[in-house]
């Protein structure tokens, strides 16, 4: 029964956390949008396009943040065989993939007016693109087995392999980028971030984080129910047989 003891405690905790995280999501994103769209100056170089940064940069942060969480949950699932960690990892991956996709698309929408092209093989964009494929591989592997437990375990090992590889990929892409440095590109971001820009940036980042927590709770709940359903059906199959 130890299998169910833990989820029960999680469900109680989740029910207590969810209203707060949902409220904080709405609050932070609301305030963040106000500052991002109305109460912050346009950049003297990039003009109003700098407002894209307030969704692009936090989304890119989330892409890495969620992958870190994914790796931690996978390690916990593999080492301690914690019954919730592999469900959490499975539930996290699509959220991380969504943020990664958002970061890529908004980056492209920012790049077009700034660089005059939709895509640049910039080191950062390229690394995020590879991270996106790591997410997709993880999701595909987790769903590739008839037995979901096997899928979760295989995906957990893949997440750890990926976590070892992310810094290596980042480093090698940076290396590659310096070998093929284009003549002149406008560097996005950089150290010229004014404090008036930092407020909306951080508010949006916190909003995204609380969104991640809220949706994660919903998705883990669904995974717990799915597992309960499977054991129930299995038991009934045994009983009728």
């Amino acid at each position, binding site marked *: 029964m130890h299998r169910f003891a833990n989820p029960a405690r999680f469900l109680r905790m989740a029910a207590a956390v969810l209203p707060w995280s949902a409220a904080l999501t709405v609050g932070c994103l609301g305030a963040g949008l106000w500052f991002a769209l109305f109460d912050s100056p346009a950049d003297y170089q990039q003009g109003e396009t700098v407002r894209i940064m307030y969704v692009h940069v936090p989304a890119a942060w989330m892409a890495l943040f969620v992958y870190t969480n994914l790796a931690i949950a996978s390690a916990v699932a593999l080492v301690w065989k914690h019954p919730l960690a592999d469900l959490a990892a499975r539930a996290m991956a699509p959220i991380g993939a969504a943020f990664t996709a958002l970061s890529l698309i908004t980056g492209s929408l920012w790049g077009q007016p700034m660089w005059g092209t939709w895509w640049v093989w910039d080191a950062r964009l390229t690394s995020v693109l590879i991270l996106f*494929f790591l997410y997709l*591989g993880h999701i595909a*592997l987790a769903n590739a087995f008839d037995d979901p437990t096997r899928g979760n375990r*295989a995906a957990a090992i893949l997440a750890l392999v990926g976590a070892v590889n992310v810094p290596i990929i980042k*480093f090698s892409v940076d*290396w590659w980028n310096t070998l093929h440095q284009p003549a002149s590109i406008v560097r996005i971001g950089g150290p010229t971030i004014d404090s008036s820009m930092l407020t909306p940036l951080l508010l949006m980042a916190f909003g995204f984080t609380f969104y991640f927590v809220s949706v994660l709770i919903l998705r883990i709940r669904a995974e717990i129910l799915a597992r309960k359903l499977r054991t129930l059906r299995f038991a009934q199959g045994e009983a009728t047989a």
Partner: protein
Amino acid sequence: MNAFVAVVARDLRLALRAPGDSATVVLFFVLTVILFPFGVGPEPQILARIASGIAWVTALLACLLSLDRLFQLESEDGSLEQIALSPAPLELLALGKCLAHWLTTGLPLIAASPLIALFLHLPAEGYPALLAALAIGTPTLSLIGGIGAALTLGARRGGVLLPLLVLPLYIPVLIFGVAAVEAELAGLSARPHLLMLGGLAALALPLAPWAIAAALRQSLE
């Protein structure tokens, strides 16, 4: 140690009995490269400019060909279970399988690479760098590929899934492998890039067998 030798010897015997598999990999390598002059035109300057990139990308793809069957045999005839139960560590078996894969795939690719370089008008000074880079880089490809093969064992559409898992992880090898040849062509030393490739291999050598063994164990549960 005996188990390790036995695994490698068995795979090599199988490969010798059916030499068609290794030949197919080489054929795929050469044939895919031959497609490029049709795609980008036969101008020697253009081909020479992209030769190292084409050689490496096609080598990565050729490496994928035989991966999905890497642990199939062991899994089907039950020997995987026996080895997992035996005192010999599963990591050693994993390493042996990767070594056998490299001997039957990586080595033929290296042997065929001068021909590829010739077709693509690679300047003569690029040959040693290409061979050295492939020699140091392809073992890493076999090791990383082994992880993908073990993870997709018994998966639905495992053959399609495998490239999705493995190709992103191949990118660092591709970057340094191509950079080594390009550096030599630019009159610089290929050494730092080859050292990087060596570093990747040194990292993959202990980590990949560990991950493969973990994946194989969970496939047996």
